[in-house]
């Protein structure tokens, strides 16, 4: 059986020019001075791994080790500078909750817009509409523009939409810290049920405990390179004992 997520020698380079050159005058000056594409920064270097269906992979590492970049590469938001990424099946990215919301539109309108962003039809979203609203606990605010929502309410709505059905691959970036503890428990439970139902999960967290609890495999990133890959408990042990 083919792996669900497969990375083959993936590297990601950013161009860290101290000031971003976005006007023509600057561009010409720097081109003449030859300092245009100077500071290279490799956020990821030669990353290769495979995860099978039903695996859940925790990604650990210090700040700036390339965790979020890795998730974005897998989600297709960033295209790697070199190497190949293969992801099979539908992907639900939980990278920033409510990223696709339009502040001027109501919760109702945003549900359809966000659904469309994830590639679902209007009819499908109509079916799921009540589930989403009740999970996000926003029954009384359906027609209120999102700009009047608190950040917790927005995040709840985003989480409810992104996890409304069971994707083949779920990508999560430290979003479980949304809302009050009750909602955290609820979102945790939903994530676990997604994992149990056989989805492949990729999960970034600073909390080693969370990774141990939710994942069977772990990947330790250090300065953009794989330091360790394998069983979640072993990797987490090594990581916390470093």
């Amino acid at each position, binding site marked *: 059986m083919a792996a669900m997520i497969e990375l083959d020698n993936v590297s990601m380079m950013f161009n860290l020019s101290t000031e971003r050159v976005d006007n023509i005058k600057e561009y010409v000056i720097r081109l003449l001075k030859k300092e245009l594409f100077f500071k290279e920064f490799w956020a990821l270097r030669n990353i290769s791994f495979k995860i099978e269906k039903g695996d859940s992979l925790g990604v650990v590492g210090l700040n700036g080790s390339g965790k979020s970049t890795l998730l974005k590469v897998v989600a297709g938001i960033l295209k790697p500078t070199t190497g190949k990424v293969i992801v099979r099946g539908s992907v639900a990215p939980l990278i920033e909750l409510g*990223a696709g919301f*339009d502040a001027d539109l109501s919760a109702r309108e945003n549900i359809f817009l966000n659904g*469309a962003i994830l590639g679902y039809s209007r009819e499908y979203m109509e079916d799921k509409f009540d589930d989403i609203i009740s999970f996000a606990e926003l029954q009384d605010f359906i027609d209120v523009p999102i700009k009047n929502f608190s950040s917790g309410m927005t995040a709840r709505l985003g989480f409810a939409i992104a996890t409304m059905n069971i994707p083949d691959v779920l990508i999560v970036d430290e979003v479980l810290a949304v809302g009050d503890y009750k909602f955290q428990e609820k979102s945790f439970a939903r994530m676990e049920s997604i994992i149990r139902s056989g989805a492949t999960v990729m999960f970034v967290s600073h909390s080693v405990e969370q990774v141990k609890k939710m994942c069977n495999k772990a990947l330790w990133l250090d300065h953009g390179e794989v330091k360790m890959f394998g069983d979640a408990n072993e990797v987490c042990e090594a990581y916390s004992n470093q």
Partner: protein
Amino acid sequence: MKTKLVNHFRTFLKYQNLLKELVIRDIKVRYRKSVLGLLWTVLNPLLMMIVITIVFSTIFKQSIPNFPIYYLAGSLIFSFNSESTSNALYSIIGNASLIKKVYIPKYLFPLSKIVSGLVNLGFSLIAMFIVMFITNTPFYSTLLLLPIPIAYVFVFSTGLGLILAAATVFFRDIAHFYGVFILAWTYFTPIFYPVSILPEAAMKVMKLNPMYHYINYFRDLVLHGIFPSLRENLLCAIISLVSLILGVFVFYRKQDRFVLYI
């Protein structure tokens, strides 16, 4: 190659619904909190026409028999292009937060702006028909062919919009420059004056202006009841296709780097 094309087509179908939602959002957000709402798409060209007619119709009385319709036909087509491309220009940088967080085929953003422009044009055409009715302008059967020039302009604007959206990501200067460019373009297109007032030299340059050809085509159908020659059709189609091919080429080559610059 073939499978690649099939894949592209599949993703297009999958995100067709998103295109629709983006257009609906555009129109909703534009007219939110305005009392007359969508009615403005009809009122706007009407009011503009009244102003322009009062200002210019005395000057060009001899050479333009039906000034209100002459103006409306030209200005509707012109502003379809100018508004939708100006909006497309901002479409990538304006959706930065989205592009950084979710994978979406990026051409959808400029394309959705052009489609919103098309919807707007549809409403504005109502204004034109109302004025035609009031001024007793004959309704030629060639009016049924209006979708042809509109399709030409749509393809042309899509190409131009893709180029502008991609270029603006790397050089924000373009956003400032394009406003001035559009103003110059407006004056250099026979929207409220007849081409007969132009000296011969200017006329030669005018023929290089794509909008001149599209507007002529549109006016032939509306005002004169003539279906333009095969040569005009070919010319318009070629200009549109060149724009589209260039646009798609530039956009596809640069799109993977957008996320690093927004």
